[in-house]
């Protein structure tokens, strides 16, 4: 998070955080302590259960998706037979959390923000999932270690460049980052679904966003860039380099591009990315036959 | 496998209870989904018993899930349309309004 603030400052020609600790390295710690100590405000008319459950259901799936990511050859929490599908299925629950949070707050902005976020989330989920089907076709398995094994000689990004691009862009959109952060467009909707949240509960949304960003980048590194495969350096280092490269790409895009309008955004999902991902599927089929 | 079948019977009964007694259309749909899940549980259990390598039961469970999803899509579309016209998702109230 600190790094993101540095990068954003550099790109926008500002001075980043630099007062807390050497070069501002303790800024994040200070932020966390502050958030924990803040008052937990809940609107009187809010639905208490949904209000509490909302942030949990956005943050927990994001953290849970780390369970199947191979951080290096042996460093994987659980190498499920259906690991790839697990990674896609579990974060899908986030949409429920977004809707609940927006609805529970009893606030027009939150309500609209929650609806928009989840509509956007589910729209981009389809092309993203379809692209991964192409990868599963080439790998011949849904197990993460098999996907890595299949890329020992050629990473899939060379076979499915279109898929890689679609995956990266739809991921950006799914975790609500600029240029796709309509749901929390400050200028129109205050802060979207988390307007009414403060303190630690707000931090959970924040954590969800960053958790999802890192998980999705790591997943992309495994699916398309061959994860821990690489010469000389140990697998973990290769995995880290590839993941951070994708994370950096994300941040760069975030702080450079302006925001889309919501109608443009939905059109983009269904009329550009969904057809593109179908094309990617056909390409994957052709590549498969060519390889055989 | 008997415990699975008993559990499935209990869940099916609960869903049926909901269908028989609730009047809100969305809750009716919730109850129907519970019944369908009870059925899927049976399918998966039988998949383990008979010809496990053919996966017939699991294939049918996946089909069941897919059909339940499309049923929910169409059902909720109907419910929303009815709500737009009659201002209620209460089945009895809607029936009264139509007469």
């Amino acid at each position, binding site marked *: 998070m600190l790094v993101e603030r540095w990068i954003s400052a550099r790109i926008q020609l500002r001075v980043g955080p630099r007062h807390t600790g050497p070069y501002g390295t303790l800024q994040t710690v200070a932020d966390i302590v502050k958030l924990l*100590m803040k*008052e*937990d405000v809940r*609107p*009187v008319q809010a639905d208490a259960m949904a209000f509490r459950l909302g942030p*949990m259901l956005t*943050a*927990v799936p994001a*953290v*849970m998706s780390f*369970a199947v990511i191979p951080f290096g050859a042996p460093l994987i*929490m*659980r190498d*499920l*037979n259906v690991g790839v*599908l697990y990674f896609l299925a579990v974060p899908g629950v986030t949409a429920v959390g977004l809707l609940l949070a927006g609805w529970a707050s*009893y*606030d*027009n*902005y*939150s*309500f609209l923000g929650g*609806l928009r976020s989840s*509509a956007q989330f589910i*729209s981009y*989920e*389809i092309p993203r999932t*379809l692209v991964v089907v*192409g990868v*599963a*076709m080439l790998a*011949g398995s*849904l197990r993460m270690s098999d996907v890595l094994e299949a890329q020992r000689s050629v990473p899939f990004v060379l076979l499915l460049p279109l898929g890689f691009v679609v995956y990266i862009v739809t991921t950006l959109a799914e975790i609500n980052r600029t240029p796709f952060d309509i749901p929390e467009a400050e200028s129109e909707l*205050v802060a979207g679904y988390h*307007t*009414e949240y403060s*303190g*630690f509960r707000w931090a959970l949304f924040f954590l969800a966003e960053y958790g999802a960003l890192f998980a999705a980048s790591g997943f992309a590194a495994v699916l398309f860039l061959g994860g821990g495969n690489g010469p000389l350096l140990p697998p973990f280092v290769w995995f880290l380099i590839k993941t951070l490269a994708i994370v950096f790409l994300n941040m760069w895009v975030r702080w450079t591009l302006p925001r889309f309008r*919501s*109608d443009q955004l*939905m*059109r983009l999902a*269904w009329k550009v990315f969904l*057809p593109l991902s*179908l094309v990617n*599927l056909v390409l994957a*089929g052709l590549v*498969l*036959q060519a390889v*055989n | 496998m008997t415990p699975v079948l008993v559990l499935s019977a209990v869940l099916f009964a609960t869903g049926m209870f909901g269908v028989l007694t609730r009047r809100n259309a969305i809750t009716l749909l919730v109850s129907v989904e519970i019944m369908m899940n009870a059925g899927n549980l049976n399918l998966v259990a039988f998949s383990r018993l008979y010809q496990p390598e053919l996966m017939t039961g699991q294939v049918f469970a*996946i089909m069941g*899930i*897919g059909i339940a*999803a*499309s049923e929910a*899509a169409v059902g*909720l*579309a109907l419910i929303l349309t009815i*709500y*737009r016209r009659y201002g209620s998702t209460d089945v009895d109230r809607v029936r009264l309004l139509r007469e």
Partner: protein
Amino acid sequence: MNEPYQSDVLFLLGFTLAVFALPVLTILAFRWLRPSHPGRLKGEPYESGVPQASIPRRPFHMAYYNFALVFIVFEVETLLLFAIAPVLRDLGWVALGEVAAFVGLVALGLFYAWRRGALVWR
């Protein structure tokens, strides 16, 4: 019974519980440390300082439902493709043709929704 499934599901359950417990415990632990001064004004929804204009419990655009509708249909189709994707490598052109027929159906659905104007945000 099969060991791998059992250990997988136990791990996943434990992990889920741990991930759920962590934020709950943190919130509870800091309950005594953070201030709590509920007030009438603080309990009001925040709408940029303007008093709430309308109750946020009202019917909204059908457009949102349209997207959810198209979403769920395509999701099931994608998952069926996931089931057959891993074995496609070992099967020949015939299997590919069968899958192509299915993908054609998916594309047809997309085309219909497109023509119908269901994909337009209004």
